[in-house]
């Protein structure tokens, strides 16, 4: 078997005295999509945010492509530029157009030439069907469009791995579909993705694995179909009955 793209070893995270992650172990192979499920406060988002070190893990080690990103000497900015992240509230740069949102990091982090960055960004906006909105500011876009721009912005960096932190939770119900469709297309193209979501339909369709996180531990994990149809842990059953 190939070396996994992402390895998490005994990850612990404290906020003050509260232990939010109590020893997480994970291995994620290339071109797989993992869904993280579980009640809020269970540690899903924290786990995701530890992977690009938006949160500092208290202890434990994380490897991407065999490189330890929790090491002291790691180049944090380069490491982050290789991991795409999509946020619940989109977090598009409000003073920039859709296109400029996508080119900013290409210019500043990857030091691309202007034309090259523009071309790359337009290509990404095309992937999310938003070339016609390239020159619009975020305030002129719907929530669904903003989230698709955010996906394009992350994709433009050619990430090895994409992290999605409840990407559809802040959207009106009728806008969720367009974002999920974009994500499914991305999964089909072979992007490695970790998705915190409650969208069971998406999990069933696109995910190859689902993990149930509660109170800082992975309660159980399985293929999404199996996890949803026959959960083994009572807390998983209870959680699924609430959201299905």
């Amino acid at each position, binding site marked *: 078997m190939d070396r996994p793209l992402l390895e998490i070893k005994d990850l612990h995270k404290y906020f003050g005295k509260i232990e939010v992650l109590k020893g997480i172990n994970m291995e994620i192979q290339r071109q797989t999509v993992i869904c993280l499920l579980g009640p809020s406060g269970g540690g899903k988002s924290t786990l995701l945010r530890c992977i*690009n070190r*938006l949160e500092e893990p208290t202890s434990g080690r994380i490897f991407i492509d065999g490189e330890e990103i929790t090491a002291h000497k790691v180049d944090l*900015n*380069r*490491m*982050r*530029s*290789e*991991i*795409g*992240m999509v*946020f619940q*509230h989109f*977090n*598009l*740069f*409000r*003073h920039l157009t859709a296109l400029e949102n996508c080119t*900013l*990091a290409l210019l*500043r*982090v990857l030091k691309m030439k202007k034309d090259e960055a523009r071309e790359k960004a337009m290509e990404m906006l095309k992937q999310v069907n938003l070339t016609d909105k390239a020159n619009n500011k975020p305030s002129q876009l719907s929530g669904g469009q903003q989230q698709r721009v*955010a996906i394009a*912005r*992350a994709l433009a*960096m050619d990430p090895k791995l994409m992290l999605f932190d409840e990407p559809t939770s802040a959207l009106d119900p009728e806008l969720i579909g367009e974002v999920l469709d974009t994500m499914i297309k991305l999964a089909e193209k072979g992007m490695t993705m970790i998705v915190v979501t409650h969208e069971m339909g998406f999990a069933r369709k696109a995910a190859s694995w689902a993990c149930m996180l509660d109170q800082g531990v992975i309660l159980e994990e399985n293929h999404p179909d199996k996890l949803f149809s026959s959960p083994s842990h009572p807390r998983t059953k209870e959680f699924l009955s609430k959201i299905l």
Partner: protein
Amino acid sequence: MEALIHNFFNVEIMYKAKYLLWLGFKVTLQLSFVSLIFAILVGLLLAFVRSFRNRFINVLIIIYVDLFRALPTIILFMLVYFAWPYFGISLPRYWSAVVALTINGAAYFEEIFRAGIEAIDEGQREAARALGLSFPQTMFSVVLPQAIVVVLPPATSNSLELIKTTVLASVIALPELMKQAQQAHGFFANPTPLIAAALIFLAFLWPLVRLVGVLERKYKQA
């Protein structure tokens, strides 16, 4: 009525005092400009340093800001000019005034810029960091361009205050507009030059006051 015109709007005296007032205005203009630049730069630097959230450094900045917002500026002018020589530092009048105005103005500008930076949603910074932007890149490409819009009306307003505060340099006998007007007042034994100085300030600052109004309206729409 005649006495009022003779004492306060005496055209002849205004004409006679025009050279002194002109000299004073030039000093005021220069003092305003130089102090404003220093105060904005120091204020920005302090706000920038404060956003690192180092507890010890931030306590120092808060003490600085509180102290100079509470201290009457006129006392600050006198301390800088009259007290420093006892510590072996003696500054000419002009630079004493610049230092006093900078120390005082920066305390206010720091507060304005900090509020501007804090008004920018944490998510903006996180998105920038997640893309691999360094801290300075995040600041200059993402936070500051957005903060400037928030900050422009109060910063313009504070600039206005600072320019008005330059008249306090008259207490250390710097020949700016106010001091020259006082001199002329004494020399001609007529307060008309004070009115003239007031009119000059009015002509000079009123457009700025209007600008603050325009900026505030514009920002509300954005």
